[in-house]
Structures are given as C-alpha cells and as structure tokens.
C-alpha cells in the first residue's frame, strides 16, 4: 500500500489547503446571502466552484510575494490572508472594509498581504503584474508575482503584450488563466481560435503549454509550486491554464441560464473541488473529526466576521475628498 500521508504534499499541507478552500467557499456563500438581503449593493462576481486555484496559490506563495486578480477576486484576496471582515466589510461599504468603501467588490486591495489589487478592466493587470516582477528583478530580490485572470482575457491585446514582455525580460511571474469555459455569457470556444485559450497561445511566447485540472486541489498545488519555484529561481515566467467552472452566473445580475442543465449538474455534483477534496482527505485516512473541526472553525469565523462587518460604521461623507493625491487630498488648484 502506498503511504499516501507521506507523499509530496502530506497531511499538514492538505489540511491547510482544505481550510483555505473552505474559507473561500463559505465567505463567498455569505457574500451571496448578504446580497439577497440587500446588505451588499452594486455588483459582485463570485468565484464559487473555482476555490482550488486561488486556494492552492494561497498555500504555495510566501509572504512578500505579489498577487493580482480580477473583479472576481474575493477568493484570491482571502487566499493571501486578508481578513474576512476586511473583505465583507468592503463589499458592504463599511469602515472596516479593506479600502473603507472606496473601491468595492471589484477592487479589493490589501498591500500588506501582497494583494496588489483587483482589476476590473480585462487584461490591464497582466501588464501591471509585470511591473512588480520587474521591480523584483531590478532590486535583485526574490519575490514572485502571480496574476490571475479568466479565459476571456486571452483575446485582448494586453494579454499578448504582457506575455511577450514577461518572456523577453525573463520576469519572475506566473500567469494563471482560470478557464471556466464561459466568457461572461458566451462559451469561450465560440469566440476563440484555439481549443485551449491560454495554453495554445503559450508557444507563441516560447512558454510551456501547461493545462491543469483546476478543480483538483492537489494537482493545482503541485502546478503552482512548480511555477513559483521556477520564477523564484530566475528561470522566467509561466502560463498556466486551469480548467474550472463557476457555480453561479457571471455576476449578480446573471442567473447563468445559457449553460446546459446537464453541464451545470455534472460540474456541481461530480467536479466540485471542495466536495471532492473532502472525499480525498478521508481516502487518505485523515481523521474525519479533524476535517469537521476545521469546518466548524471556519463557519464560526465567517459568522463572527459578518457580525463585525454589520456593526462597523458606514464611511464618513468627507472621505469622498481624500486620497486622490499622496498628500491625502483632492485639490487640483491653489
């Protein structure tokens, strides 16, 4: 019998990954509930079903590394260790929010944790992530920059500009395409010249073609660790295409009715990263009591953070006029 507990990942890291993914799932579900109660306004793009990708990178990255994500970035922000009340508070427009209500759901930023922003215009942040990677190279330090984006991003110019630049300058960066099969409401294959929107473009930039099951947390962790090590060792950029699926629609306004029922059912029932990982942990003979204790702990954390967020005051109106400039103000003439 294979000693499953002492393989390359091991029990400790698996439980860490389990806790991480569960946190991303439960906070996202809470965000959905708060929407339904109209306590969160605006829009929101949930990453339900895609937790293994952000979760794996969250476990694999070190303090000081930089991450960039999209408007679907609640999970990626939490995965770096940002507080739950910081995230939920921002969604609810409270003072305890990461940006005290200045940014909202689509722009979560927590520089102390290496969360260098969530970007809501497709493609831009790939070029900006090159900049933090360039800074690490320029300063001869060894941080790694990681940039998450969706399949739809592979058809915009900035994606191609960024990959080319990362390669020619051998930057310490990992580009992670979360291919959830749909570009907003449109199946990605209907609008893309190649089958694998990111991986099939890798060759054009002299990068390896990397495709991974983004819902298999162990495989995702192995892939993340390999690419991060490569970047940290000065061996240049990677482009990973992780196949996944979002459980909900594109955004708050989208019930996702354009997806076939059978397809949704298959991904929800058979390919849910969290359900499958729980089964895997049991299969690895990890004590169910430990697994359940983690579940209870996270549930408790989410509830407490929700209470803190709801009790947190709303921003003061004078905040409108702060922080345009580094002097803290917004004046444009004397």
């Amino acid at each position: 019998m294979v000693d499953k507990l002492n393989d390359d990942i091991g029990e400790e890291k698996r439980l860490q990954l389990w806790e991480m993914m569960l946190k991303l799932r439960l906070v996202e579900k809470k965000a959905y509930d708060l929407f339904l109660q109209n306590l969160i306004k605006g829009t929101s793009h949930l990453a339900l079903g895609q937790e293994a990708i952000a979760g794996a990178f969250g476990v694999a990255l070190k303090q000081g590394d930089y991450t960039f994500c999209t408007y679907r970035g609640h999970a990626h922000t939490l995965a770096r260790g940002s507080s739950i009340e910081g995230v939920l508070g921002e969604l609810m427009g409270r003072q305890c929010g990461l940006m005290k209500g200045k940014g909202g759901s689509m722009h979560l930023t927590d520089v102390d944790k290496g969360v260098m922003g969530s970007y809501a215009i497709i493609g831009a942040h790939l070029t900006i992530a090159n900049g933090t990677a360039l800074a690490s190279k320029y300063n001869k330090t060894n941080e790694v920059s990681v940039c998450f984006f969706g399949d739809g991003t592979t058809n915009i110019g900035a994606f191609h500009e960024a990959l080319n630049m990362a390669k020619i300058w051998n930057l310490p960066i990992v580009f992670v395409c979360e291919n959830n099969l749909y570009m907003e409401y449109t199946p990605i294959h209907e609008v893309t010249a190649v089958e694998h929107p990111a991986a099939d473009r890798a060759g054009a930039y002299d990068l390896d073609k990397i495709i991974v099951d983004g819902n298999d947390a162990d495989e995702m962790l192995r892939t993340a660790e390999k690419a991060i090590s490569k970047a940290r060792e000065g061996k240049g950029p990677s482009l990973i295409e992780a196949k996944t699926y979002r459980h909900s629609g594109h955004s708050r306004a989208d019930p996702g009715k354009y997806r076939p029922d059978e397809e949704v059912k298959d991904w929800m029932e058979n390919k849910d990263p969290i359900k499958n990982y729980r089964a895997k942990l049991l299969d690895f003979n990890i004590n169910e009591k430990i697994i359940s204790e983690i579940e209870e702990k996270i549930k408790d954390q989410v509830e407490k953070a929700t209470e803190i967020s709801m009790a947190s005051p709303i921003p003061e109106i004078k905040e409108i006029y702060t922080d345009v400039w580094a002097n803290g103000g917004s004046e444009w003439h004397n």
Partner: protein
Amino acid sequence: MAQLTYRASVSLAIAQSMRKDQKVFFIGEDVGAAGGVFKATVGLLEEFGKERVMDAPISEQAILGAAMGAAMTGLRPIAEIMFSDFLAVCWDIVANQIAKTRYMSDGQINIPLVIRTANGGGSKFGAQHSQSLENWSMMIPGLKVVAPSCPSDVLGLMDSAVKDPDPVIFYEHKSLYAFKEEIEKTDLFIPIGEANTIHEGKDITIIGLALMAQRAKDAALILKDKHDINAKVIDLRSLVPLDLQTIKKSVIETGHVMTVEENPRLCGWGAEISSLISEHCFKNLKGPVTRVTTPHVPLPSADILEDNTIPSVELIVNEVIKKLKGE
C-alpha cells in the same frame, strides 16, 4: 553659461534624476540604443546600462503597465510614449489604472511615475502624430499634467515630476526640441503647479502653455514694439495642479484675458480657465474671455494647412488688437 536645447535638456534632466536616485529607471520604445526618435534621450544607455534604460517592444499598454507596477513597489520609473497620440492605445492603463488605483485602494498604493511624451504639431506629421492632448489627461482625477515651454523648465519640472509621489504626464513639445536657452545652472527644481510670467504687461493677460506660451511671448514683443500694447504672458507650465492664484492676480490687474491653446476648441483647457475666471473674477473683467484655439478639426498635414490651423504669432497679435481696439 551654456546654451542648451530643449532636446538636450530632456536627456540631461533624466540623467540628473537617475544619478541622484537609484530607484529611477527609464523605459520606452527606441529610447536606449537609438537615443529616441527625437534624439532626446541620447547617451542615457551608455551612462546607465541596459538595466536602467530599457528598450521596450511596441506595446504601449505593457510599457505603462510595467512602469505602474514597478512604481507600486516604490521604484520611480520614467516611461516614454513616443508620440502623445499613442496614449490612445494605452488609455486604460493611464485613465483607469494609474489615475485611480491610489483612490480605490484608500491610499494603500502610491504611483510615483512619470510618463514623458512628444506632443503637439508643427512637424507636418498629420492628424495622428501631431495632437496636443493635455486636456485628455487634465480631466481625469489622479493625474498631474505638466507641459514645459523651455529648457530650464524641462530641467526643473522633470526633477519635480520624478520626485513627485503621484503620477505625472510630462508633455514635451515636438516643435520646441530645437529651442535654445542660455542656462547657468542645470540642477534645477521647479515645483509643479507654479505658473511663470514670461512677459510683463498691464493691458491684457495672455495665458499659454508649451509652444503656445512661446508664441504668446513673441506676440507680446510685437504688440509692444508696433502697437503700444503691453501684454502680460502667463506660461501655465502645468494644468494639474493649476496655479489659479497667479491667473486671478493678473486678471484683476488687466481685466482682459485671452487663452492660447493648440488643441481644438471643444473642451480645451482654456474652457476651464475661462470658467474659473468668470467664477472668481467676474467683476474684474472688462470683456469676455477670448479663446484662441485650433478649429474643431483633425490636424491636416500640408504646410499651408497645418500652419493655418495651429494658432500663429500673427493670429495672436491680430486677435489681441481686435479685442482691445475693436479693429
């Protein structure tokens, strides 16, 4: 005393900043080995090497994105966009990312970067390589907008722009690259947001920027010599922040105001100045604010067409005479 061209002052200004601060690096298309298409960055690669003077591909979004990301970590990049017209292909990075990230992050992120770009007409390059686009950037909260009119201002404002903790767009005027000035001292610092009175007068206030400031000054000399009109010429030097106090003070003295702008009329920077003057100095005005601009057309290419589109010294002289003497 040494004579310095505007072109040479650009490379000198960048070099001085790079010598002073290891955090400053320079990135752009053809800026290193080629020394820039306007030869305004000659010698930088030789002095600072490839690590600090980086030749980039034709990827304006990637250039400004990389500069922004590096600035977010505390470096102080200077990025070149070869022609200001090309800002259109990376406007997302400028207007949505560089300008707004500080505010959206509640001040967690500073972006101390300088975007240098060759701006303006006079070279007969046609409508896509000649525009004056200062007004595009001045309307976006979060961007500082600088446009020097002479070599000493290039030196002093570049030093200021590089040291500024906020993003600065630095519009260099193509038709001024050959402009010469006697300079005593090259290590200058001019705070951004201080206008410069480049010709004294009490009859009218003429407000200009970059090439138009120089043309307004030339017009003022003619007005004084041949028409007995004393015009005060204010070179704004920056649109954001704007030196409203200097404008107000002058309007109170002269009561007559003219803006001279190289951009097409609609939503040009002079419209905002005019609005501010009517708000702050209405009772001091002896007549309406006059705006001299290009007409609402793309810039044509042929000599005679371009020359008659951009405000000339003669046009400024004639407009002032018409305004003051009704001729």
